[in-house]
């Protein structure tokens, strides 16, 4: 991508660059007037974009089908508007109905969705012995099985972690820490790779390095 030449694009590039500096003034300096301005600008533009998306989405998935004869789409529109009764003290309770639909769909999909991938698949995967006979494969199998058993026992909430549970639960905590450490390390890659992109952009706009 070459450095833009059209005036509006150049203006846009510099606007983005300045907004970046305004936002980064928070971590690099402190909360200040330019950060506050960028903060409010962002809140406004994001809400505007989301509202426009809302209008286009509702039009596409509800209003257009309704106009084409699928009259039942009036139901979610009414339920959605029922949310706004929150603003009227006496009728606030009506807003619970649309929420009940959301909560029901969320729980229904959530509960049915965890049974196989989160529970059965995980148990099967834990107890499936390695296909080959390599010592390292067997070591990994034993490590994962014992680790998972101990770590799950750490989450027993109605039993004291003493007696027979003392060592498995303590060991379980260590396995959890290893998992979280690896995850943490991996996330460092993602975050810093994005920040590198910004550092690159900073230099590109100033034409210190090519775009």
């Amino acid at each position, binding site marked *: 991508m070459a450095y833009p030449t059209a005036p509006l694009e150049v203006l846009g590039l510099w606007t983005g660059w300045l907004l970046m500096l305004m936002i980064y003034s928070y971590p690099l300096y402190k909360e200040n007037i330019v*950060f506050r301005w960028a903060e409010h600008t962002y809140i406004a533009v994001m809400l505007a974009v989301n509202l426009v998306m809302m209008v286009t989405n509702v039009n596409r998935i509800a209003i257009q089908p309704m106009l084409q004869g699928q009259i039942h789409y009036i139901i979610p529109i009414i339920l959605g508007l029922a949310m706004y009764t*929150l603003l009227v003290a006496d009728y606030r309770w009506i807003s619970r109905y649309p929420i009940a639909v959301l909560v029901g769909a*969320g729980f229904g999909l959530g*509960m049915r969705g965890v049974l196989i991938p989160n529970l059965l698949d995980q148990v099967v995967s834990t107890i*499936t012995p390695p296909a080959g006979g390599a010592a390292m494969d067997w070591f990994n199998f034993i490590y994962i099985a014992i680790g998972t058993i101990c770590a*799950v026992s750490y989450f027993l909430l109605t039993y004291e972690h003493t007696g027979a549970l003392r060592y498995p639960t303590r060991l379980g905590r260590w396995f959890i820490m290893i998992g979280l450490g690896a*995850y943490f390390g991996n996330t460092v890659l993602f975050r810093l790779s994005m920040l590198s992109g910004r550092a690159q952009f900073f230099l590109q706009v100033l034409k210190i390095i090519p775009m």
Partner: protein
Amino acid sequence: MAFILLIVAFALFYLYMYLGKQGKEIWVRTLPAMAAIPEAVGRCAEMGRPLYWTPGIAGNLNDSTQGPQVLASISILGYIARECVRAGVKIDAFCPIPDALPLVEETLRTAYLAEGRPEEFSKDMITFISGQSPYLTGTLGYFQRERPASTILIGGFYYESVVIGEAGNTIGAFQIGGTNNTHQMPFLIATCDYMLLAEELFAAGASISRDPDLLGSIKGEDILKFIFLGLMTVGFILGLGNVTFLIDLLRM
């Protein structure tokens, strides 16, 4: 097999909820994060600063993964709010999920009503900001301007967890975190004083209520865990001998 698992789970939850109601004593391990809430509120009262609460922004209520976490967080908010009303501490609830707004408002309103101070409730306690990143900038700005003494980051989080957590640390806030999103747990552990990990998030509301009905379901969960631990142990031993019939059974 998934259907059998669901039925077994529901039967166990129901059985122990029933036993709980019948008077069977159910002991639940104290969750340090929940035990720390009075400390968090007390700190705000001492310093005369507000308490910040957020359920994260990971998803709407109808999102299968994030919705239940947001609801669990709002359940805990009820408890926090009552503690705050008693101590005269101002709550600033940052709720970036529009469909959860009525629940947050209702929860806060009920807490004030239950403590006999309905007139102190104000809608201004609730801040809505649309979108993950603006919500983040809004929170950062708020932290520096209002300097809450304690922050409660419990719910469904995405990348904002580490930024809010670190920004909270910068202003010296006492922080309690909690999430079931594996990808954010390391950051809440790193930045918060106390943390509700995975299942603890869902159990937290029940554990503080001391309601035998709710405690019973936690006991049911533990029995289910024992069944799984048993399955895994037996399967592991069989696996060492390359016997796989249990695997075939579970795959049915």
